[in-house]
């Protein structure tokens, strides 16, 4: 009993430094921002201390804002699903391949993390336009008859978002796969399960938690990111991130920007709660 308690205390002590940093640099600003979202915004001043639900009211009634929230969620969900599917397949391949392939594939997965988001966006500007790489590739393969431009489309924003979040998703899933005894796959086949059944019965349940974590991770990322969708998407692609920037820097309406930010915070919290509830009770299986 006392040993148990001592163990708990040790764990808490070890957690403490990280906890303090999170509280000071993350918790406090969030609280300040929540407070800011209720401030008044008369005439052209940034904000005036006060208390009003006006900004939240605007978020719910103004079609520009509701539209932006909807667009953001839709884009984030689609991009996250695609990211998780691609990341899962890639992690599975790396896990199944012999070790000599592993380093190479992990290196490939690390590449996007070595380049800044802005540089990646410049890369897409070489890739998507009418005279870009994609257009030439499709044309020379005979898949299209004329040069095409995918620049400034929702598809480009979608692809850009996947690219940004894929490495994180991949590494989360790979770490989950690495915790699985590869012999389980053989054991399943050995007992008479065809590959798809093995996937459904063994691999999926054992990676389910990782899938949910990877999904929420990329959802959080794609929902909050601002540069990639606004640089690659059409001018009409108004995401919450874009609107925050516009309200903050363009319209100088800090309380409204803060209220929009709170929407993102709540959205992320909702996704966290949802994924948590989908996780099995026995979160880890120690073999």
């Amino acid at each position, binding site marked *: 009993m006392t040993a148990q308690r001592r163990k708990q205390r040790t764990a808490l002590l070890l957690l403490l430094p990280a906890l303090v940093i999170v509280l000071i640099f993350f918790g406090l600003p969030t609280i300040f921002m929540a407070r800011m979202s209720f401030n008044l915004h008369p005439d052209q001043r940034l904000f005036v201390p006060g208390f009003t639900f006006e900004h939240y009211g605007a978020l719910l009634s103004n079609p520009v804002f509701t539209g932006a929230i909807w667009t953001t969620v839709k884009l984030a969900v689609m991009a996250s699903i695609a990211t998780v599917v691609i990341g899962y397949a890639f992690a599975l391949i790396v896990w199944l391949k012999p070790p000599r392939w592993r380093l190479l594939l992990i290196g490939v997965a690390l590449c996007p993390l070595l380049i800044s988001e802005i540089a990646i966006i410049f890369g897409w500007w070489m890739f998507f336009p009418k005279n870009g790489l994609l257009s030439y590739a499709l044309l020379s393969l005979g898949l299209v008859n004329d040069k095409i431009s995918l620049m400034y489309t929702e598809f480009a924003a979608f692809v850009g978002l996947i690219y940004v979040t894929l490495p994180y998703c991949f590494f989360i899933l790979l770490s989950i796969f690495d915790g699985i005894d590869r*012999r389980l796959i*053989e054991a399943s086949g050995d007992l008479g*399960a065809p590959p798809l059944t093995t996937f459904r019965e*063994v691999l999926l349940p054992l990676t389910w938690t990782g899938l949910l974590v990877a999904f929420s991770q990329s959802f959080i990322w794609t929902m909050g990111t601002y540069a990639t969708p606004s640089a690659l998407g059409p001018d009409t692609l108004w995401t919450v991130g874009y609107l925050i920037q516009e309200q903050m820097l363009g319209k100088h309406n800090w309380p409204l920007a803060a209220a929009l930010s709170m929407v993102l915070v709540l959205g992320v919290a909702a996704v966290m709660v949802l994924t948590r509830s989908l996780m099995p009770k026995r979160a880890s*299986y*120690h073999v």
Partner: protein
Amino acid sequence: MTERTALELESVRRCFGSVVAVDDVSLSVAPGEFVTLLGPSGSGKTSTLRLIGGFEELDAGAIRIKGERIDHLPPYRRDTATIFQSGALFPHKTVAENVAYGLRMRKVERPERDERIRQALEIVRLQGYEDRYPSQLSGGQKQRVALARSLAVRPAILLFDEPLSALDLSLRLQLRGEIKRLHDELKFSAIYVTHDQGEAMAMSSRVAVMNKGRIEQIDRPEKIFHGPANEFVFTFIGESCCLPVRRGASEVTDRNGQAVALILQNSLPEGDSRLYIRPSRLKLAAEAQGLPNRLTATIHFIEFLGDMHRYHLKAGALEVFADHAGPIGHDVGALIDVGWRSEDMKVFR
């Protein structure tokens, strides 16, 4: 003829790049027979097992189960069941669900399935553990669940892939006895891979000693022990002393050319040869008197092994060790005789 074999390997071959892991291995297992593949690591025994299970692809040869070729089939279409070294229990399934897995895949329906799960768990003495998860079991219990899971599907042949090597010694001995008991009771056909000769000797109907991808000898355990076919088998099975000697024109010397006091009943062929004797067959000091083969050597050091004293002796560059129950009354540095009968010695060139 094929009717009477559970499993048949015919000139099976498997290469990894330029390395030949399994080289022209032929083997047949009669129904109810327990055949062990014994060999050092890298001898191809596990590769052979994985070829039978379908986890590796054959480069040449044929594998038949009950007379039918199966080497083109994926693992899930083969009537085999493997007990892995790690157990490979599904950690997200309970004991009962683990045992049920193979039965579900074979479309065994409800009442019979439950009955067979019950039987299988009873056989391995794990009734009452149905709802536990593998993480709640000890290492030995896990291996017993793995065994139950494989037994439940009643495969044509059970494949054991060093199932005990991850366990500690006492548990290993206990489970070894249990597998032996189960085999006597159920008469399943099995191939058992191990590098532990004790396991091989104790459990097997026949032992195949493997080395460098080939079967060196396959026979009953007693035959392997007492009549090893070649030098590798002799040295791999049981302990043995090796005397590398050279016979010149007249006298016998060690490899450095130094004369040694070695008397042999039958004269050696000229040139280099190696004599092998089991340490338990060597007689020391007074007991060596009158034996036809004798070596005079100095006691180098003495080990106390509980039941035995092991005497390490030196004569020139030759080293032998002999076991003796109790001390012989000579100390380190004493010059004594070591003797043995001719039938206890093997000579390889």
